[in-house]
């Protein structure tokens, strides 16, 4: 039997979830509209650059027909409601950048790439980073622990761009075991085992570039610090004094306590994967959502930008909502009130 308190709790969180999404959408819409970029003017400028000299009357006509073609006519209020409808139906209309391809199709083409890369990399980095961080804290003072700490402190401040280029230089140029280009190889025979292996191989460097700094950076350092804090808590000291086995203390006292903030961070990290990893995608020429969003924003393609940003909004809001719901299960101290 579901308690009334639980229902009230879920209802209030659901309301917050809906309000967050609505607000985020409105802010995104306003920000996109405030951008000093006009896709139509850019298109006309590119046509002029190709040697097309127009008389002003023709330009007015051209401008009008392009606005109509891309569905950009109407007052800002009309456009807001049009885009709100598109957002609610998750049909963002045709993209301007890749007209007439629907934004939904562009997103669906990129989504597996992004989710595949970021989902895998974030989870792996989280698991290994947390395990290593916890172990480094538990075995504080040992040579291995010191070595891991030193590596983490060196890796953490390295700019991502440099780290990725170092990986490329080492493993695609100096010791060329990975290809320079990411994405797909030639899939002439469809998704054969060889093609899948090729795909994995082409995605390994981008994945490593996310896993290494994540694993040995934030996840390692935060879990180590959290573990050290928990280890110095009175209840842990008391448990040791009681003579409880060390593995039991680690499992029941330490891990469970550091899991709460780390799971929250993981949930949010997974929520943000829908906006892609722009730097990774640019450096590795990886066909994810980040590049799509960047190009859309840079070129004033409102429909595509709004499509990708909506996905990100929904992703983060949903992750937060789910975390809110499952919190009490992870931490009994949290109650439905």
């Amino acid at each position, binding site marked *: 039997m579901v308690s009334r308190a639980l229902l009230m709790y879920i209802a209030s969180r659901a309301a917050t979830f809906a309000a967050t999404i609505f607000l985020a959408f409105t802010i995104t819409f306003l920000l996109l509209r405030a951008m000093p970029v006009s896709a139509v003017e850019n*298109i006309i400028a590119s046509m002029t650059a190709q040697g097309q000299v127009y008389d002003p009357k023709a330009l007015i006509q051209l401008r009008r027909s392009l606005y109509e073609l891309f569905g950009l006519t109407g007052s800002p209020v009309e456009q807001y409601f049009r885009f709100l409808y598109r957002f609610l139906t998750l049909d963002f209309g045709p993209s301007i950048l890749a007209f007439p391809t629907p934004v939904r199709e562009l997103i669906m083409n990129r989504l597996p790439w992004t989710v595949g890369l970021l989902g895998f990399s974030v989870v792996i980095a989280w698991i290994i980073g947390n395990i290593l961080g916890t172990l480094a804290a538990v075995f504080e003072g040992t040579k291995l622990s010191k070595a891991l700490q030193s590596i983490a402190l060196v890796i953490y401040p390295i700019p991502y761009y440099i780290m990725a280029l170092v990986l490329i230089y080492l493993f695609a140029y100096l010791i060329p075991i990975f290809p320079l280009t990411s994405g797909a190889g030639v899939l002439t025979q469809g998704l054969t085992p060889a093609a899948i292996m090729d795909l994995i191989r082409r995605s*390994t460097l981008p994945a490593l570039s996310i896993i290494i700094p994540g694993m040995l950076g934030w996840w390692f350092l935060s879990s180590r610090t959290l573990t050290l804090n928990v280890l110095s808590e009175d209840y842990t000291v008391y448990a040791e004094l009681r003579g409880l086995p060390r593995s039991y203390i680690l499992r029941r006292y330490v891990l469970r306590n550091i899991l709460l903030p780390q799971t929250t961070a993981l949930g949010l990290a997974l929520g943000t994967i829908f906006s892609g990893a722009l730097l990774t995608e640019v450096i590795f020429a990886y066909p994810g959502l980040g590049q799509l969003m960047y190009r859309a924003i840079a070129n004033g393609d409102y429909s595509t930008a709004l499509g990708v940003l909506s996905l990100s909004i929904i992703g983060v809001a949903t992750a937060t909502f789910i975390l809110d719901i499952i919190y009490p299960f992870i931490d009994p101290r949290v109650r439905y009130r």
Partner: protein
Amino acid sequence: MRKVLSLALLATLLIGIVAVAIPTSAQLPLPPGVPRGDVLVIENHYGTHADPKNFNYLVPGRPGFGASGFSQVCAGFLWYINTTNSELINWLAAAPPEYSDDFKTMKVYLRKGITWSDGTPFTADDVVFHVKMIMKTEGMNGHYLFLRWVEDVYKEDDYTVVFKLKKPNPRFHYFLTVIIYGAPYQAIMPKHVWEKVKDPLKFKFYPPVCLGPYVLKNVDPGGNWFLWERNEDWWGTKLYGMKPAPKYVLFIHHGPEEKKALAMSKHELDAIRTFLPENFEVVWKNNKYIGGWRGKPPFAWPFDACVKGVAFNVLKYPYNITEVRRALAFAINFKVIFDAFTGPDGSKPTPSVLPVVRHVYDDKPHYVALKEELLKLGLDPNPPKEIQEHLKSLGLDPSIVWWKFDPEYSKKLLEKVGFTYKNGHWYLPTGEKWVIHITAPSGFEMESQRIAFLVAEQWKKNLGVDVVVEPVESGTFTSRQARGKFEVGAFWPGCSQLLDLTPHIQSWASKYFDPNAPGIGWAGYKFPKRAELDKIIDELESTPPWDPKVRELEKKALLIWAEQLPWIGFFPTPFYTLHDKYCWENWPEFPENYYMDPVYWWAQMLFIILQLKPTGRCPTKEAVQPGKPPVLPVEKPTATPPKTTPKTVAPGATVTVTKTVERTVVSTVEKVRTMFTTVTKEVTSVVTDWTTAGVLGVVLLIIGIAIGYVIRRR
């Protein structure tokens, strides 16, 4: 605890094993078994394509025309311009265009025997359909252009197309000629494919049907690469013996420039649009097979299509004051800018004080012809020796470099129009502090960004004026320029690749000014000689390019420009358009093998691909030696050669051909020297045949009469 530790180690090990154990071959995305030597690898300079399976470039704003390879290896164009000499290349068109005397009709002759990649014959129907489809489809690329000029287009026969123009235009064929890069509406579309399409703007044209020597083999679903396969049934091979050597052409995006430099260093990229000097250096040090505009250092191409510099918004105060613009020009030490663009290999830019790219063929009629006037306007009479030497090495007049560096004169000019300098700052005549805001590109066109910062530094240092540089992303940059929302911008309004400047400068006329998108405002700028400039453009537009009057009119227009200086151009920034001679050779190189400019991202790249040869250093299976060079004969229809004796037909045939020659010459760009020579030679030889026959006949007649006379007398 040990278990946990073991698990962690195991996971780490697994990742390592997976990473290392995977095979290391096939770094490039090639079909299984295809050796590197069968593939020409060219940079896809656009980057990751959002929808790589859309080849309908007639959709406005659709990017990637020259990045996917479509314009270079698949599309079919009537004519091209060879930018090394401004010559017209007849491609699908069998001859140069033929205009009526009033320039209201243009006739296009097509080559016979051309077929689309699916085997369908290419005929006048395709050209007529293509133009009519664009005219019918509002918003389509080229729609308003054709609508403005074309009254009607129809076929006279299967290989002759007639354009009836709304008003006279002796340059209408430029719209159908690849001059710089190539425009999507210039690539003829197949009627048999598009006539079945309901909404041409929503059609993806995938896979594309080609007229070029390659067909699409595969596309990266992620949008990074396009693989084209040689069409063994290509019309060029069957009709003219041309055959490209590479079995495949791969257009690929490797990522940022640093990665492209690594790719070229390890022979995984054969041609690239450009490198920044620092990345060029990486390639230069690691790949001894590279070449550029020259085969040896200095490599950079000095004639990119546009003269880079900074443009003023001449509709915005105080840049609407001529003295202000001139003052700012004289406050720049050109040598500093020149040195900043001198590359590590000694590549130097070509100083271009006028908004005309300074090719050898442009120097005399445009630069030297205006030298005296330019000196009066402030051309540096004693330019640096080093720059003079450089100009000499290119065959250009060394005494014409740039405006003099005279900050004192700049200050006087500013004070003359009411500016004041106090407490280390300049103040506008209105009393406000003068701060110059320069809009610069960010993340692209980095050469122009560099120019913006260099100019800012010069103005700060030499004039003491406050300057702020604002680098912005491409979309914002273009929008600001188009909408005129800037003060000064690192734009490049002066582009040219033709000796005939009309298409490059006609937009200066006030009739083309669009208040909604004023750009730098030059067309809408009111100044005392505005009416004169408009009249010059009107005259230029109605004067055929081969008329000597054109040069005079161009000079007048350029002089007015130089008096007003609506923008300051320095030079086309040296372009490190590199190629790798490890797998492929016979790239165009100045001066020994200068058959084309290194325009790998332009449609003219086709002519390079058709001449490349495998070096033998890379393993091949299906690469071949190239066929005949892509020099196609003029095949304009002439009167059918007589089947009877020459005596009866010869005079008429001779007259017809002679008229044709006159018309051909009349309807061609003035500087189309080779074409002219080709036509003249061809026709001359025909005329000579008939003349010989005629002369022989006359001689035989005279001999006959003489013999008869002798016999009769005896």
